[in-house]
């Protein structure tokens, strides 16, 4: 506002960077480079990697979690978080198994899975929006509650014997090597990208994530939008539950344990700021792909699952720490709290 800004020695450029430079320096470009590097490395490390059917199998590593990650990305962009998704998967699966005992057929099972997901999302959403509670604590509580109900119903037993037609969701192929889960995920990803990047609803999420008070004053129905996001996350968890239950063919109360962590890892790895207000669906999809490639590649090299988690954990930290080291944190200057 004063002379200091235009004083000699300080040039203010007309525009910060050109569009090409912006694309090159973007998070998504970095993710593409990482994905290509891992893909190349894997294809040299194991002769079995480049087989189409092997690659197709590898997609099962991430499709279910990535479906949840899509909704979680919207939630995180709007400044909220849901730690109960893994528990919703377990509860939805338990409900489907319970209905199965009374002879429910496939359409009813699917309806129950989706319904339970939506109900759980509604519980989270109501607690957060109506009572004004922080989502992180609410969802830690509901995480215990939802999975607790699954344990009450199942104890140390399991539900088995899902009908043949139900198995298609997790085991069927639409065409050649493209599984139903992969096609469903691709379709949902496209839908989410359109909703987030091309609609008013999507723009509102960024506004809410950056400044909920300002968003409310500019006429956005903040609480209603948040509620919709929790419902959406519950619904996606229900869909993931149907796929996972169908793929495994049985329900134990421990089903989907740790899914919330992997979904959040995908979201953060995909460049969504955990503090809200920025991120893209493309980034999340790429992050899911990278995590799938890493776990599959390490699996081919006979690395046990728990050791892979070291890589995933390290990747999560490195990916957010490295830009701070090299870019001086210019893009990431945010309050360090949560």
């Amino acid at each position, binding site marked *: 506002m004063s002379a200091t800004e235009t004083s000699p020695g300080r040039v203010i450029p007309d525009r910060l960077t050109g569009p090409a430079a912006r694309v090159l320096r973007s998070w998504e470009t970095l993710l593409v480079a990482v994905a290509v590097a891992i893909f190349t490395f894997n294809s040299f490390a194991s002769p079995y990697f480049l087989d189409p059917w092997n690659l197709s199998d590898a997609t099962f590593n991430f499709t279910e979690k990535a479906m949840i990650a899509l909704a979680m990305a919207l939630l995180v962009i709007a400044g909220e*978080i849901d730690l109960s998704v893994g528990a919703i998967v377990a509860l939805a699966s338990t409900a489907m198994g319970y209905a199965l005992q009374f002879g429910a057929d496939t359409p009813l099972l699917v309806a129950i899975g989706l319904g339970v997901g939506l109900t759980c999302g509604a519980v989270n959403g109501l*607690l957060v929006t109506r*009572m*004004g*509670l*922080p989502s*992180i*604590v*609410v969802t*830690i*509580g*509901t*995480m*215990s*509650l*939802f*999975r*607790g*109900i699954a*344990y*009450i119903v*199942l*104890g140390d037993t399991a539900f088995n014997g899902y009908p043949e037609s139900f198995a298609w969701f997790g085991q069927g192929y639409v065409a050649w090597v493209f599984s139903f889960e992969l096609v469903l995920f691709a379709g949902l990803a496209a839908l989410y990208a359109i909703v987030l990047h091309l609609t008013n609803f999507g723009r509102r999420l960024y506004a809410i994530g950056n400044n909920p008070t300002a968003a409310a004053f500019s006429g956005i129905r903040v609480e209603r939008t948040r509620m919709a996001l929790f419902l959406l996350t519950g619904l996606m968890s229900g869909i993931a539950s149907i796929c996972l239950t169908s793929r495994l063919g049985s329900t134990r*109360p421990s089903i989907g344990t740790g899914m919330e*962590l992997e979904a*959040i*890892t995908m979201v*953060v790895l995909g460049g969504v700021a*955990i*503090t809200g207000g920025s991120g893209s669906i493309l980034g999340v999809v790429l992050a899911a792909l990278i995590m799938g490639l890493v776990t599959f590649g390490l699996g081919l090299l006979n690395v*046990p699952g*728990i*050791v*892979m*988690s*070291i890589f*995933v*954990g*390290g990747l*999560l*930290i490195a990916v*957010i*720490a490295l830009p*701070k*080291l090299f870019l001086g*944190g210019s893009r*990431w200057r945010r*309050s*360090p*709290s*949560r």
Partner: protein
Amino acid sequence: MIATILKRRETMLALAILALIALVQTRFAGFARPGNLAAIFNDSAVLIILALGQMAVILTRCIDLSVAATLAFTGMVAALVNAAAPGLPIGAVLLIAVGLGTAMGAVNGLLVWRFALPPIVVTLGTMTMYRGAIFLLSGGEWVNSHQMSEAFKALPRSLVLDLPVLSWMAILVIALFVLMIGRTTLGRAFYAVGGNEHAAIYAGISVGGTRFVAFTLNGALAGLCGYLWVSRYAVAYTEVAQGFELDVIAACVIGGISIAGGIGTVGGAVLGALFLGVIKNALPVAGVSPFWQMAISGIAILLAVAFNARSEQRKGRIILKSAEQAHAAPAPATGASA
């Protein structure tokens, strides 16, 4: 005077615990025996210690999800050291466990401080890495009771003044926290950093440094608990205390420690942990399946956080009396609720 004491959350929580004990006592005589109450305290000792460590972290507006993994890792190292060198005095083993825990907490603290990374992401990452590291270290093997020396297993059980050392450790940590939180500048700095980051900077407090200390302290306590846990149950394996971090956070939330930082008391954290401990011990006595416990603690968390939110609603502070009157005159333009 009495009204203010009754209104305090610690009093309410203590009354709730007493009511719970009385309820179980009416149906199962002997539950409120001093001996049984001491056993419940002993059972809750680890949870109390970790809840206090977590409280320090949460007070600074951070969160540590890696405590249980840190506990399991240090416990495994302590067990392996003991198995390899049974002659090593227990003091040295304890020192190794605490030192290792301190280092692991410091890693979290450094990442949060120096890289300004969001604590939830950092500790999510280190949680999976520490868990994986246990597997690498042990090769997935268990360290069983017969591989541990008698002295290693005896310490937490040995009685001093009719109370096991495990209980005394918890009492010692409670006493240290009462002194530190209430009587040292460090303790007050925890509140300042969480209460208002910017004001803390102007008061000459290093925000990042204080958070670093909180994480390191929490790590040290997790290290101590690692030894206590493994020696008490006389077994060490990769999944020790899996998910225990949620119990710890639940104890804090139930104890009235605000997840938004800056609010909470030592008494609250201890009572929160005891509340969960009493429930855990009352369920089997009351003949309720242990599978109910998860759902019940979930409901306890939700009730506690809903209760917290009511008592936490901060009134905007107006320092000048005249400004207050000027503010009171026009219509309430800004305040959503008084």
